[in-house]
């Protein structure tokens, strides 16, 4: 067992050696530009890209013609949201999303607002799921796009995408989903789920960083997005730029492996996750955040009341975990996702996300449980709030000096 133990697989995953092996020839011996149509070097690269396109499409039940390669999910989210707005703004100017979305979606929506678009940010229920009645009520004749993530990056809850898609379509809007955390972890099928656009990333599924894809539906309806990157007209004119062939080969291989191993892997990981979660919720005043029924198999977000997350992580230095999202943990603000579940700031400050992955072993989980328990107990010994709680003092009755 190697220390520190990596339990931050929602932030990124280690690359699978089989993926690396598939990629290596495309860095040197098969270095061609996939757009070079007039010689063998280009054909070899193009063939590899076409094959990867099929591998990606197969994992999400799409046709290979519907896959646009990008630099990652952030770019895919931007292309989908800004691209749909630009393409369909004569039809309507309203987009609906949710407050718990990734910043890539939220900030792309903010950009759309600057361009004159209207955006509704749906609140979520206490369990992190979107309220379908609220979505229905927010739909207007001007609504062109509903963008709701498949699985949440911080708490792992899985949104009712099928029902959301049905509501969007009923009102003539497209449905887009950021499925970065869900693809490769649970079955995702663009047709069964009614998805018109879908963002995914390689590095969350044991592939390389810097490559991802956007699924854009071609039939029923035929969806188009306005390119956000101008140039040689690659990717059916929707995303210019010489294709990242080794990265794309890696993404393809990563998708293939997930397709083959997802079912057994999800069972293994949810058993390990449940073991971790049950062992840690034995601790007094510990709470699992988000819906536990509709949740990705490898994530548990737990708040340990009366200890502070950053201090806790320091005591857990043998574990690589995350307190709040890695994207925002450079700031001292507690996670906006947890706060939108209605968690008080102090409980949001006390949360740790455990993200298991393909290379997580039971031994590591057992060790993580011990380390976490000791850390929580150590910090509670130091915590004046824990002492007050134990003495039966209501912390809400104290007038705290905000600073």
């Amino acid at each position: 067992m190697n220390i520190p133990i990596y339990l931050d697989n929602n932030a990124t995953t280690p690359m699978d050696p089989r993926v690396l092996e598939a990629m290596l020839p495309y860095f040197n011996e098969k270095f061609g530009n996939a757009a070079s149509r007039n010689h063998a070097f280009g054909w070899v690269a193009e063939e590899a890209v076409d094959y990867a396109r099929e591998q990606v499409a197969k994992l999400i039940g799409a046709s290979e013609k519907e896959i646009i390669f990008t630099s990652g999910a952030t770019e895919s989210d931007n292309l989908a949201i800004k691209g749909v707005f630009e393409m369909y703004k004569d039809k309507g100017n309203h987009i609906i999303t949710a407050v718990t979305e990734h910043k890539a979606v939220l900030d792309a929506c903010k950009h759309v607002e600057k361009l004159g678009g209207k955006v509704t940010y749906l609140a979520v229920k206490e369990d992190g799921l979107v309220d379908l009645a609220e979505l229905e009520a927010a739909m207007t004749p001007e609504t062109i796009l509903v963008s709701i993530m498949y699985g949440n990056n911080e708490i792992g809850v899985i949104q009712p995408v099928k029902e959301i898609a049905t509501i969007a379509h009923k009102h003539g809007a497209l449905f887009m989903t950021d499925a970065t955390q869900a693809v490769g972890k649970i079955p995702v099928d663009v047709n069964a789920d009614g998805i018109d656009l879908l963002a995914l990333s390689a590095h969350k599924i044991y592939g390389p960083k810097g490559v991802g894809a956007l699924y854009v539906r071609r039939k029923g309806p035929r969806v188009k997005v306005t390119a956000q990157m101008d140039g040689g007209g690659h990717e059916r004119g929707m995303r210019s730029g010489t294709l990242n062939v080794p990265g794309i080969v890696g993404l393809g291989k990563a998708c293939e492996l997930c397709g083959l191993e997802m079912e057994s892997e999800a069972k293994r990981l949810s058993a390990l996750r449940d073991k971790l979660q049950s062992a840690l919720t034995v601790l007094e005043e510990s709470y699992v955040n988000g819906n536990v029924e509709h949740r990705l198999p490898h994530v548990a977000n737990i708040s340990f009341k009366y200890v502070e997350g950053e201090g806790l992580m320091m005591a857990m230095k043998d574990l690589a975990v995350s307190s709040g999202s890695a994207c925002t943990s450079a700031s001292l603000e507690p996670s906006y996702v947890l706060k939108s579940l209605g968690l008080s700031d102090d409980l949001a400050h006390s949360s740790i996300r455990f993200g298991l992955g393909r290379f997580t072993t039971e031994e590591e989980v057992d060790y993580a449980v011990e380390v976490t328990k000791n850390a929580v107990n150590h910090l509670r010994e130091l915590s004046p709030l824990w002492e007050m709680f134990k003495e039966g003092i209501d912390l809400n009755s104290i007038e705290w000096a905000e600073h």
Partner: protein
Amino acid sequence: MAYSDKVIDHYTNPRNVGTLDKSSHKVGTGLVGAPECGDVMRLQIQVDDNNVITDAKFKTFGCGSAIASSSLATEWLKGKSIDDAMKIDNMDIVEELALPPVKIHCSVLAEDAIKAAINDFRVKNGLAPIESEKVHH
């Protein structure tokens, strides 16, 4: 974020963790910060008849720097007169622990806790609290 060795030392082996009898008139208690902000410090001092701090204890809810700042404060307080304790400046703590700019508020909180504990002691003993007019760095 990388913590300094001194922060790690205080965090791993915090000095003077504990609770003094807050009902004693020889004990001053300062409770500062707020749970919503992610930092709460409770610092207590035991004062003898010569106005010398004979014991100091703390408990802190917060990050490693907050815990280290309060642990260091208790070390510095022991043996000091009340008057000298009043002079402890948050920037002394910043310097000693090599706190980065985003963690300066932890040292401010520790200074506030010291002053709050001293004032609690003063009020208990019929003295007026000392108003601090200092602007924090």
